[in-house]
């Protein structure tokens, strides 16, 4: 049975959705506009609408190097953390789905426990541990604690539980080793969930602020969000340059989002993405 909807109701929906979309997109458009304004513009209505259009803010950032260095840091840390999560969450998720030992039940319970723990509660002990272990101010502190995440394990486990184990059993009878079953047979089947996982981990890591901020002090180790927050720390804010740097932080995520939006939306609706 098709439920008919009056045309005026559809029209109202479009009006409401367009208004909402405007509110959601406007601040981003504003950021991009200001990023191309000549430095020293007043940001008044006439400047924003009629003012100049320049790439100089971006070339200034490139010559200054701070923001570009931070961009590289974010990219390196993000890619390593993402690769680690794809590998380790896959291994752990597979083991939890297929080997139902008591130890694995404990491991899964600890995953669920960590999902419920507010991350900021352990900020002080992690800082003290980083200082004491000499990891403070190093890439290790930015990477190693986040190489495997409970939400990733959870996603992979749920996915593998939905696949019948017949393929793996057939391979085992044919004499295939456990490692080749894991990486040659199961991993390719899991590609959809691993893509969703990779996107979520990368975006979360790319945007994360508190831990990179407290675990490093050297300017050369700052990730992009930290560098941007530091740029703003002066009394007189240079908006065009700051917005140009912000645009650099947003564009990679936007690109990933537009290429992968189906995966991202379906991944979240399947019950994931914890930030």
């Amino acid at each position, binding site marked *: 049975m098709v439920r008919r909807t009056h045309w005026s109701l559809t029209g109202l*929906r479009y009006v409401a959705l367009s208004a909402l979309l405007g509110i959601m997109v406007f601040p981003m458009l504003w*950021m991009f506009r200001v990023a191309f304004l000549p430095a020293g513009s007043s940001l008044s209505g006439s400047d924003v609408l009629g003012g100049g259009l320049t790439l100089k803010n971006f070339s200034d950032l490139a010559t200054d190097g701070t923001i570009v260095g931070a961009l590289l840091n974010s990219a390196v840390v993000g890619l390593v953390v993402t690769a680690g999560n794809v590998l380790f969450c896959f291994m752990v998720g597979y083991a939890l789905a297929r080997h139902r030992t008591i130890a694995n039940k404990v491991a899964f319970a600890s995953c669920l426990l960590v999902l419920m723990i507010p991350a900021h509660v352990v900020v*002080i002990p992690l800082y003290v541990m980083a200082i004491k272990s000499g990891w403070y101010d190093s890439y290790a502190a930015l990477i190693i604690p986040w*190489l495997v995440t409970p939400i990733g394990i959870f996603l992979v486990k749920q996915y593998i539980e939905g696949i019948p184990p017949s393929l793996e059993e057939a391979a085992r009878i044919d004499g295939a080793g456990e490692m080749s079953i894991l990486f040659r047979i199961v991993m390719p089947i899991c590609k959809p969930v691993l893509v969703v996982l990779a996107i979520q981990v990368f975006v979360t890591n790319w945007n994360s602020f508190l831990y990179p901020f407290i675990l490093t002090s050297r300017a050369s180790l700052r990730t992009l969000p930290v560098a941007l*927050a530091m740029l703003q*720390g002066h009394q007189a*804010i240079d908006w065009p340059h700051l917005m140009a740097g912000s645009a650099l932080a947003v564009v990679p*995520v936007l690109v990933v989002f537009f290429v992968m939006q189906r995966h991202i939306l379906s991944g979240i609706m399947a019950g994931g993405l914890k930030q």
Partner: protein
Amino acid sequence: MKRQRLIALLLTSPWYVTFLLFWAFPLVFSFIISLTDYQLLSPDYAWVGFANYRALFSDPDFLHALKNTTIFVAGTIPITTIIALLMALLVHPPLKGRGFFRSGLFLPWITSLVVVALVFTNLYGRGGYVAALGQMVGLTPPENGFLYDNRTALYSIMAMDVWTSVGYYMLIFLAGLQAIPDELYEAAEVAGASRTRQFFSITLPLLRPVAVFVVVINSIKSFQVFIEIFVMTKWKFETATMVYFLYDTGLSNAFKFGYASAAAYVLFAIIALFSLVQLILLRRRGPVW
């Protein structure tokens, strides 16, 4: 069989290491130092029992942060939940271009919160865009911008929080709406139930678990609000929240690890209690709306 167990252990070892080193140990360690007067600059520390916890509740700064966090959570969560539900209802039924709207409405969530905070610092600023909008409808905006006025600063940040998160919760509600079987509506139609009646008798009751989930994860997030406060109102302590307080006492000026850890545990206890109550509400049958 033994070999299988060994393989399972090997495969799960990355998680065991991470869990023990970066979650279990810090949690225990944090509790232990919350019972001491441990500080960065004095390596000798003494047991003080629960003195840190007692001191917190007579510390005006902490009570102020607790109050701000409560305002933040109590103010944003109902509004975010209701707007997200309405948005989900708007993008759920078939409509040309609804995928485009879903993506667009979700965009703020994936934007770096630092960037969002910077952009809104500009929009909320003196003579900024929001002030201009306010003047257009005849309101008088705060003289130095919304973030430098104690009457508006926290509420402005709360409005921004709603803006960044509604798109995400909209998607969760949407997943909930898609899980409701069509047959229910068909049966209701046959029985002659109106659209309004269908909404209140089918849609809302079946969305209850989703709504509880949304409120639980949003409150875990909102009790820990920090980035916005740090970036947008750095020079003012009027808007300090609990995580800002623990950053300020533990990691910024005083480096009082023991005292800050006690604050972290109070926050932990509040969040745990809050989640527990909500999960019990979820389990309980009967009308909640």
